[in-house]
């Protein structure tokens, strides 16, 4: 059918302080589009459904294979990666909105700095540069633990879990689900475990693990199927033990 179209309804915003508004776009159908490739077409033909030439819709993307997290947005109300959202699978008009839990930079681009700040705060790395002696041989991790850790290592800091979390707000201190997966991941690494008390203390205060409300939306929407709620419960155990340790050792 030559007349077939792809219809979009996009929530746009010209700048961080500007008021949002909705704009409709249509483009000729062709099979195999994903949301990013469709947005690329609209960038080449920046014309809204009324035929007016407008500024092209701005969005963020990088890898095009659902591993970088940059193109996360609300697609028909669901937080997910635009590159992995196939137009043929979506109900039309396809409604695109920026993630609501992060400050909008422009149109579908949001400022995700807060998530990276959280990774710094929880020391989401293995400390190899220091005056201390690290393992003479590569440390051993059991194959079973390796396979569990692999699941947590897939986090791409896209923010979908935070978008769906009822405890995570732009104006709240809660660091959101994803950083807990990184605490879980790095605490279970033999060298990473040097920082265990630091990481656990970083999530024991306001905005930390106790601010989780167990709504478990995070694990439902995670595009990488990361067992976020397992990490949260495991850290509930680790923080309890750390707290008892603090009582006697501090």
């Amino acid at each position, binding site marked *: 059918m030559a007349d077939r179209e792809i219809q979009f309804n996009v929530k746009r915003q010209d700048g961080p302080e500007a008021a949002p508004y909705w704009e409709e776009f249509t483009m000729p159908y062709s099979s195999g589009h994903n949301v990013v490739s469709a947005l690329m077409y609209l960038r080449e033909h920046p014309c809204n459904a009324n035929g007016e030439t407008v500024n092209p819709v701005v969005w963020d993307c990088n890898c095009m294979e659902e591993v970088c997290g940059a193109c996360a947005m609300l697609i028909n*109300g669901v937080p997910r990666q635009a590159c992995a959202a196939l137009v043929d699978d979506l109900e039309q008009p396809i409604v695109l909105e920026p993630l609501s839990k992060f400050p909008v930079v422009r149109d579908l681009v949001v400022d995700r700095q807060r998530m990276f700040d959280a990774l710094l*705060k*929880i*020391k989401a790395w293995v400390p190899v540069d220091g005056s201390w002696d690290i393992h003479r041989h590569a440390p051993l991790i059991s194959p079973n633990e390796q396979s569990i850790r692999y699941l947590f290592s897939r986090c791409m800091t896209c923010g979908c879990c935070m978008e*769906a979390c*009822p*405890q995570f*707000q732009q104006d*709240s201190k*809660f660091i959101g689900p994803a950083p807990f997966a990184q605490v879980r991941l790095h605490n279970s690494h033999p060298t990473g475990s040097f920082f265990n*008390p*630091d*990481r656990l*203390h*970083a999530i*024991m*205060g*306001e*905005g*930390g693990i*106790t*601010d*989780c*409300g*167990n*709504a*478990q*939306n995070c*694990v*439902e*929407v995670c595009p990488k199927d990361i*067992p976020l*709620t*397992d990490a*949260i*419960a*495991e*850290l*509930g*155990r*680790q*923080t*309890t033990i*750390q*707290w008892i340790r*603090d009582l006697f050792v*501090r």
Partner: protein
Amino acid sequence: MTEASNGPRGGSEVGYFLIRRLHSLTGIIPIGVFLCFHLTINATVVLGPDKFQAGVDRIHAMDELGVLKIVEVVGIFIPLAIHAVLGLQIWLTGRQNVLAYRYGANIRYTLQRWTALITLAFILFHVWQMHWLGGWFPPGGEQFVPGQAPKSAAEAIQASTWYAPIYVIGVLAAVFHFANGIWTFLISWGVTITRRTQGRVGYVCAAVGIVFAAVGLSSLVVLKTTDPATLHVEPHEASHAVAVNLDPAD
């Protein structure tokens, strides 16, 4: 947060952690344990007014030692106040989104908050209506007579057609909040970690909820449908049963 809060020694966040864990703990011990005892002793009215009166007498034997009020205040009212104040504070940290994310755990997250509010309102009403604290203000409270437990409880509940539905709603809300609270307690403290264990324990919590809902409602059915006059117990014999049995000459 300050630099010190993610160090190996910990800082002010340990206090925040303690407060949140206190909220979690008070819900189970002593409040949840008290709820189970309360509903179970009430349900003995199904076995006959004398059985219920005997249970009440055993509790009010503490009155003769002068410790019942202390136990009530320290063991029930103070933990309840702590749990309620911290709980309302926790409510304010979240923004419910169950209409956008209709997952089971998110529905329970939402219900946990609303049943908390219903239960709190119901407890205030219930304590005013039945308990000695209700004798203070406003008039019409303090209907429960410990020496004439089944009759006075039935009279109080039958005093208005509104009271039975209020009690049904209040008991069901409290039991749901308790049963779901066990589930979240076990996650928060890191007892149940994986989705599978959480799923299995969820069925156990549901069973606990159904059992205590049945136990709670059974006493309400008896107290609502039985003529209070037939629930009369011999006052002196009953209230001095403990003392009489202790008399070696008897």
